[in-house]
């Protein structure tokens, strides 16, 4: 909402600068996004002048040489190009030295051999209108030499206010003035809609037009007045200046009056050329299925039955509350005007304008719910201006369809409640004062002096319905700056992270400590990206209104974001990166699942990806970013989590984005909680990155598994450990895990730990075999193990190994 400050000050003028006014308004909730300065650079050198004589320019047909009295002594000679300049006119003059709106300074000039000392001004030259056809002709009562700024807003500030959606009353200059009055206590001018125009004639509005509301659920009130002998023409300078500063283009006096009323009071109006209203009949109804019309902006609109229409006897003439039609638009030849001021149903207007994709100044106000009283109030001021500015005759009477008249709302305010909610002592008379300045009626409730009976004015009816709404009014206007600063007197509240949250932090820190850098990637991705991962796309969640096709689906895993980042860094010359992300992934909700209350299947994952190589320096080679490098990182995470886990080969086709031979499922607590592996070469090719490996882990599952394990004390044995190195020869396809399992099965509980320290393949072993070297630690809780004990264990290990086709190497 653009509020010209000169206009605002006509209603409420505290002794404050524009910036101070903006500050006062911001503190009470109406913030100026910016303050714009309009008009001339300085008001000096702009004065009223009288044209004494006009002669044709000797060397130019279109120019005139004028003698202008401007109060500075001798008349000055001004060369003027306007066709309408004439002797005897009172005009606006810029003397040499004047600083124009663009900032340029006016100098003495010689135009085709005649020197010109200043300029006679057109509207657009001082920013109060768009007219450049001719010079402004002012009221002859003005005296030569008077400062122009005293009569025209040639310089103005405009507050560009950010009005909250609950405050349609502040989408009006008078409403903003009321806020300023409440905040500062500076006097507020009488409501400009308080007095009405005088009708004349013996006819009645009903004689000229009829009105019917077919569907009262979409129209709370519809009022109309009739004006005859209307002279359509340009608006006066002051009106054009106000509209222009407020951001509305002046069109004609009748249309300008409707816009002016909307800006002044917040109530949109619509003027019809009554002679173009077919059947002289207004019908308010819902649109019919398949109905359409052309709005004022020339666009053909298709309508639905939720939309409210203003029609004449033959069809729609406007979409109610949103935009009028071309059918009965006011034109230069209009002489009879039907002025509409109606009250629509806010949510209905919001829905219509949303579905039409058409938001207008009018709909922005109606959608916030105006009160039916406002319609008639606006008719009063509009009528006065129609009579005053268009010379119109106001036909007596108002067409007024008001099916269910609203009665004023009263709300009880308990002063004790006010104090306990705000935590502040505000004197009773200050509470009353604030509410009264805002236009509320206040009386003491009969039963208790602690309670106030507050009557809500019509312009706040939609917003102030409850006690707490009144408390907000008092808080914001009394001044939030005066609020004490206290801390809650807490009871039974201990703040801490949950076990799962601490676990997640540890897991993230473990990756960070091992050199990985965290990314935050978008939660959405392209369906094609899922295909590039060789996934089917089943069970994906899709947005119905994505910003772009590349953000259509919610990602089911973190890997694509990590690959995108790796690819982008590779393009910048960083081929080797190690990245991780900790975030949600999404899928369609399983039919039976109600996991964590989400309407979707949503899990928190921790994903990592390393490309190219890790580490390395002038004396050590970097390690390839392969399966084992990634497994080492994962082991770090699992150690941080304090969880036992194992890697199991993935089933064929299960993780199609992984190298089938270098992929594993992460299994903990007998649950598969993630994957680990080298990225499939066809996938890395898609992202144009080198060989890379990654893992992805459901950290919620991790926390659930961790929550099921507990740590209890085990006796620390005082008897010495016996260390034995063994070498196990097995066929290639027997996994290390299987070998370890056999060793453990053979050795039993005295085997405290195993550590695999070498894998050997060679001619002595023959094709298809490998040797795993392991260090075994034996320890008994109750005695020192003897060589015989260990020899017996070896034998049992050996026989277990035979089961998997292995043997101990001598």
């Amino acid at each position, binding site marked *: 909402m653009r509020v010209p400050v000169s206009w605002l000050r006509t209603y409420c003028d505290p002794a404050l600068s524009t910036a101070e006014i903006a500050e006062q308004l911001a503190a009470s909730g109406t913030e100026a996004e910016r303050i714009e300065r309009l008009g001339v650079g300085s008001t000096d050198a702009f004065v009223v002048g009288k044209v004494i004589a006009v002669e044709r320019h000797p060397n130019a047909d279109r120019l005139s040489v004028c003698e202008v009295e401007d109060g500075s002594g001798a008349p000055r000679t001004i060369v003027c190009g306007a066709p309408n300049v004439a002797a005897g006119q009172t005009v606006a003059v810029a003397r040499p030295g004047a600083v124009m709106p663009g900032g340029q300074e006016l100098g003495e000039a010689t135009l085709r051999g005649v020197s010109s000392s200043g300029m006679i001004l057109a509207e657009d030259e001082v920013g109060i209108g768009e007219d450049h056809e001719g010079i402004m002709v002012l009221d002859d009562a003005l005296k030569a030499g008077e400062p122009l700024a005293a009569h025209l807003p040639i310089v103005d500030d405009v507050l560009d206010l950010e009005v909250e959606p609950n*405050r349609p009353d502040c989408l009006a200059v008078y409403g903003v003035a009321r806020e300023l009055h409440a905040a500062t206590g500076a006097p507020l001018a009488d409501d400009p809609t308080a007095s009405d125009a005088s009708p004349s004639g013996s006819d009645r509005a009903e004689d000229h037009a009829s009105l019917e509301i077919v569907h009262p659920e979409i129209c709370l009130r519809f009022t109309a007045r009739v004006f005859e002998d209307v002279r359509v023409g340009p608006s006066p300078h002051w009106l054009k200046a106000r509209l222009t500063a407020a951001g509305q283009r002046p069109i004609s006096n009748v249309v300008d009056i409707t816009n002016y009323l909307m800006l002044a009071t917040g109530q949109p109006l619509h003027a019809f050329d009554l002679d173009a209203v077919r059947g002289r009949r207004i019908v308010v109804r819902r649109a019919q299925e398949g109905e359409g019309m052309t709005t004022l902006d020339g666009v053909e609109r298709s309508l639905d039955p939720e939309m409210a229409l203003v029609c004449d006897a033959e069809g729609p003439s406007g979409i109610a509350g949103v935009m009028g039609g071309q059918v009965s638009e006011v034109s230069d030849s209009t002489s009879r005007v039907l002025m509409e001021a109606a009250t629509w149903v806010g949510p209905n207007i919001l829905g219509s304008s949303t579905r039409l994709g058409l938001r207008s100044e009018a709909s922005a106000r109606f959608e916030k719910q105006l009160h039916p009283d406002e319609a008639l109030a606006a008719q009063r001021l509009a009528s006065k201006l129609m009579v005053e500015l268009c010379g119109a005759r106001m036909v007596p009477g108002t067409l007024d369809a008001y099916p269910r008249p609203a009665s004023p709302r009263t709300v009880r305010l308990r002063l004790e409640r006010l104090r306990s*909610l*705000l935590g502040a002592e505000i004197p009773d008379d200050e509470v009353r004062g604030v509410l009264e300045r805002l236009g509320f009626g206040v009386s003491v409730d009969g039963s208790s002096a602690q309670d106030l009976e507050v009557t809500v004015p019509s312009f706040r009816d939609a917003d102030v319905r409850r006690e707490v709404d009144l408390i907000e009014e008092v808080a914001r206007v009394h001044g939030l700056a005066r609020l004490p600063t206290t801390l809650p007197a807490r009871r039974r509240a201990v*703040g801490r992270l949950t076990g799962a949250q601490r676990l997640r932090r540890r897991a993230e820190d473990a990756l960070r400590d091992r050199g990985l850098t965290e990314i935050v990637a978008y939660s959405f991705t392209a369906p094609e990206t899922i295909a590039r991962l060789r996934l089917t796309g089943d069970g994906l969640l899709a947005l119905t209104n*994505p910003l772009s096709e590349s953000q259509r689906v919610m990602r089911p895993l973190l890997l694509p974001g990590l690959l995108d980042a790796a690819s982008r860094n590779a393009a910048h010359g960083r081929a080797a990166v190690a990245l991780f992300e900790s975030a949600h992934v999404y899928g369609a909700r399983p039919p039976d699942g109600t996991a964590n209350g*989400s309407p979707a299947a949503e899990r928190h994952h921790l994903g990592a990806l390393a490309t190219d190589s890790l580490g390395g320096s002038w004396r050590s080679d970097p390690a390839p970013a392969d399966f084992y490098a990634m497994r080492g990182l994962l082991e770090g995470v699992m150690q941080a989590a304090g969880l036992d886990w194992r890697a199991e080969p993935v089933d064929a086709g299960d993780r199609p984005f992984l190298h089938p031979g270098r992929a594993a499922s992460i299994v903990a607590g007998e649950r598969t909680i993630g994957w680990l592996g080298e990225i499939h070469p066809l996938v890395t090719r898609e992202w144009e990155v080198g060989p890379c490996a990654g893992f992805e882990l459901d950290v919620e599952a991790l926390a659930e598994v961790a929550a099921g394990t507990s740590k209890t004390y085990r006796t620390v044995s005082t008897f010495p450990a016996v260390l034995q190195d063994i070498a196990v020869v097995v066929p290639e396809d027997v996994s290390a895990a299987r070998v370890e399992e056999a060793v453990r099965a053979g050795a039993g509980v005295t085997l405290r730990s195993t550590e695999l320290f070498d894998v050997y393949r060679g001619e002595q072993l023959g094709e298809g075999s490998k040797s795993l070297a392991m260090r075994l630690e034996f320890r008994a809780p109750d005695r020192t193990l003897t060589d015989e004990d260990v020899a017996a264990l070896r034998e049992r290990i050996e026989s277990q190994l035979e089961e998997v086709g292995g043997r101990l190497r001598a």
Partner: protein
Amino acid sequence: MAEQPITPPLSEDPTVRLEELRGEAERAIEAAARAEDLEEARVRYLGRKAELTAVLRSIGQLPADRRGPVGKAANAVRVALEARLSERSSALEAAALEARLGGDRIDVTLPGDPPRPTGHLHLVTQTRREIEDVFVGLGFSVVEGPEVELDYYNFTALNMPPAHPARTLHDTFYLSDEIVLRTHTSPMQVRAMEAQAPPIYIVVPGRVYRRDSDATHTPMFHQIEGLAVDEDITLADLQGVLLEFARAVFGPEREIRLRSGYFPFTEPSVEVDVSCFACAGTGALADGRRDPLCKGSGWIEILGAGMVDPNVFGFVEERGYDPERVQGFAFGLGIDRIAMLKYGVPDLRLMFEGDVRFLEQFGAGA
């Protein structure tokens, strides 16, 4: 020195001679500068053909009354010399080692083995954790909720029924008529109150989504919601809690300022500004230029807040949230915005591009 046959002068008092021998031998040991010299001294004084050895060997031939004293004295000399030898030997070895090490010089200016490099937490994570920790210290718990959310929790239960004008402020992503990507972390207010009777003190960090994209708006960003409901929580308490937060995050000198605002789910609603940390609230930089961070105002808007609207309690009244018996505050702030302010990040989109040249700028994070 050539080895000479030594004939024990038995005619003399052997103990005198033994002392002479000890003196000679000790001097020779001290004088040995190399291991070889020391070995020569050992052979000379303690070797098979040494005079002392001869004395020890000839003790049996002495008269019975002399055997004891002479034998004792000779043995004492032998023990003393052996100790001297061993001592000197250690000293020579140590000296030789020192000499060898002294010659083993490396280029100490070459780079060391790189430390296992520490990575980086994302700026958003660092900031989120910092904020979480402040509120945990103030007695709040951290809860999280779904990002794919029901329209009911995102709007309706926050006092924004369908067609409420405030819904137009949220450019919402839809998955269906009923399901949205949450536009703020506020839906967890009602979810948390459904799950827990009062009192409740929580903060809710997480991703949120709006259909918007430019330098300061991305379709995804991060918020932290706060909610405190108890019997007697006041707007003044909200101011106190947020002042503690602002000082913890932006510095102990900060002040905050409440301005009236509007949110459908709080009443009264406030916007909260923190005094600018770039210009200490003066609006001007040290060189007199207008502070671009706060645009010369001395204040920076950081969050929205207010007292929980009774209508919101109405959705959880059966869980013990009778608006006549409990009251509380809620607030919501943008994590990314706080991070951008603190670190001077000019463009929100940088946060989500995964460019390590950006991500590595902010340290490892705690």
